[in-house]
């Protein structure tokens, strides 16, 4: 037959096969991070995986026997809803202990997209920092840049001109609309309505084309920088905003009709993944998930930053904290953001879009040829970067997923000494064991998509 047969006993190939059977299993199994059989986990970890969050008063301690898992250990299955899975929104790995279709225990395993951004942040100067931070939460990159710039400006004690403040608000609210549209699309597809995916992306393309026109890039646009904004708005931006606002507002009623009326959508979202306000507060959950349980906490209203106190908008608060409430909170937040964008477009002040202090913002390109110190400023800012006085600050803003905080420590040089980004999805993921307990596998898919984790900011 063919010449391949007498290769079978070739030592090189058997050596290869032998390597193969040892390397991969050792490297994909995450040992202690995984969900171990119930006999192998101690009481406090078992209580966390079962989703019991609220601690009893110090006196009595839950002993594992009375945690109500009536199934014996060999009757249940421990399976992987692994890193490469259509419905885990990126590379989240969930290990579930199932009794048939019902979920008993859950343990999210993350780190499959860990990019060491906080370490890279310490290598880049403040001027370059926002390019690194913007790739963390890739559904709302402008929010990351905003929180990093606010922290840097706070340490520099620099006052950003009003036009830059209002441009920042315009762009971040547009980014919130595009992020919630992306959530509507993937949530629709996870629950089976693929047409929602098409509609969600169709509207999102309108917002992205406006971003491309203003910032030059659809995503990761590095537009909001310490000291203001990269460029002024292109002329004729009011009519683009007008078109975007009218179309998307009209389309939200279309989505409402497409989804809310359907029995399948309601069957899979009503009373699934209920969360009480106490559990949400105990687990430090923020954003639409916290508001869906009834807690009216929105940083734009309670601890306003930029110029949100001058805008009139409503904070949307749910009642039951289930999937349906999270859906209606996000859907109405799109409408609120559209209302805000219209107000911003009316009250946009004229003036500079960057702070004029030469130490922070490089001089305009034309000035460099004329004056010597403009050249020096330009050279200094782009090579060594501007120095930030020593100190530390924590700034938090309301990103589409929750409280996005930036803890910045500077040691007086031109590079951040420590840059820690508080990712809302990183903390919100801890609510999964509480929401998945007792539900079906299909509900697990619906709940993961309603928690809306973005793995870029979870793993940083």
């Amino acid at each position, binding site marked *: 037959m063919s010449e391949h047969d007498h290769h079978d006993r070739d030592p090189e190939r058997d050596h290869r096969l032998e390597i*193969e059977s040892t390397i991969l299993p050792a490297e994909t*199994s995450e040992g202690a991070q995984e969900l171990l059989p119930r006999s192998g986990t101690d009481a406090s970890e078992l209580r966390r995986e079962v989703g019991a969050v609220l601690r009893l008063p110090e006196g009595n301690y839950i002993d594992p026997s009375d945690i109500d898992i009536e199934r014996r250990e060999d*009757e249940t299955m421990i399976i992987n809803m692994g890193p490469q899975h259509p419905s885990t929104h990126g590379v989240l790995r969930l290990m579930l202990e199932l009794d048939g279709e*019902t979920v008993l225990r859950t343990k999210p395993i993350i780190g499959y997209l860990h990019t060491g951004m906080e370490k890279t942040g310490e290598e880049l100067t403040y001027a370059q920092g926002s390019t690194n931070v913007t790739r963390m939460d890739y559904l709302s990159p402008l929010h990351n840049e905003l929180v990093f710039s606010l922290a840097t400006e706070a340490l520099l004690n620099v006052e950003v001109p009003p036009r830059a403040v209002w441009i920042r608000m315009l762009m971040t609210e547009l980014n919130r609309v595009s992020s919630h549209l992306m959530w509507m699309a993937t949530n629709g597809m996870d629950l089976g309505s693929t047409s929602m995916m098409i509609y969600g992306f169709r509207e999102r393309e309108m917002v992205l084309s406006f971003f491309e026109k203003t910032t030059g890039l659809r995503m990761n646009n590095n537009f909001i920088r310490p000291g203001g904004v990269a460029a002024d708005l292109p002329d004729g931006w009011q009519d683009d905003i007008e078109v975007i606002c009218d179309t998307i507002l009209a389309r939200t009623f279309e989505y409402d009709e497409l989804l809310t009326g359907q029995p399948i959508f309601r069957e899979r979202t009503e009373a699934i993944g*209920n969360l009480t306000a106490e559990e949400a507060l105990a687990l430090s959950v923020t954003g639409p998930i916290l508001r869906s349980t009834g807690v009216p906490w929105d940083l734009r209203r309670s601890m306003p930053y930029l110029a949100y106190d001058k805008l009139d908008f409503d904070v949307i608060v749910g009642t039951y904290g289930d999937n*349906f409430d999270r859906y209606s909170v996000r859907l109405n937040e799109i409408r609120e953001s559209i209302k805000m964008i219209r107000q911003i477009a009316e009250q946009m002040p004229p003036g500079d879009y960057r702070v004029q202090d030469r130490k922070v913002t490089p001089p305009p390109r034309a000035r460099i040829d004329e004056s010597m110190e403009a050249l020096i400023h330009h050279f200094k800012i782009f090579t060594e970067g501007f120095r930030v006085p020593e100190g530390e600050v924590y700034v938090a803003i309301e990103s589409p997923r929750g409280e996005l905080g930036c803890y910045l420590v500077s040691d007086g040089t031109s590079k951040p000494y420590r840059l820690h980004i508080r990712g809302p999805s990183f903390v919100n993921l801890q609510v999964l064991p509480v929401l998945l307990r007792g539900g079906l596998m299909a509900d697990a898919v619906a709940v993961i998509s309603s928690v809306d984790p973005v793995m870029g900011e979870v793993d940083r």
Partner: protein
Amino acid sequence: MDQYLPILILMVLALLFTAFSLVSSAMLAPRKKPSAAKLAPYECGIVPNREPPQRFPVRFYLVSMIFIIFDIEIVFLYPWAVVFHQIATFGLIEVVVFAAVVFVSFLFLVSNGALTWGPPKSLTAGMPPRTSDSTISRISATRPQPGEAA
């Protein structure tokens, strides 16, 4: 004799088709030993280091049994459909009775809860159907923030 000619042709065609596909796949398929990874079960990219569970809840087999009942019902409809014109009204009554009998078994299954899978899902009984505005409240800037959270 001529009644059975089409059946004969059908059998020959079936044989030819299977033979063709078997031979061509044997001939054209790449000649190589599948690697260990390709034979391993697919677990979302994770190499399973614990053997798959042996015991499956009985509920999964229940579903296959239910399927068999209704599959047989459909199989009996085919010959009925072929001779439908000759046995007109009598045939119709016959098949309706047959369907009713199978439907009784379906009612028995539903009453026994074979088709209800998860825990009962309802917040409060008799709740009005929710819309995207019914269960949310809007807190505007004019009304003072409710002080105490939760």
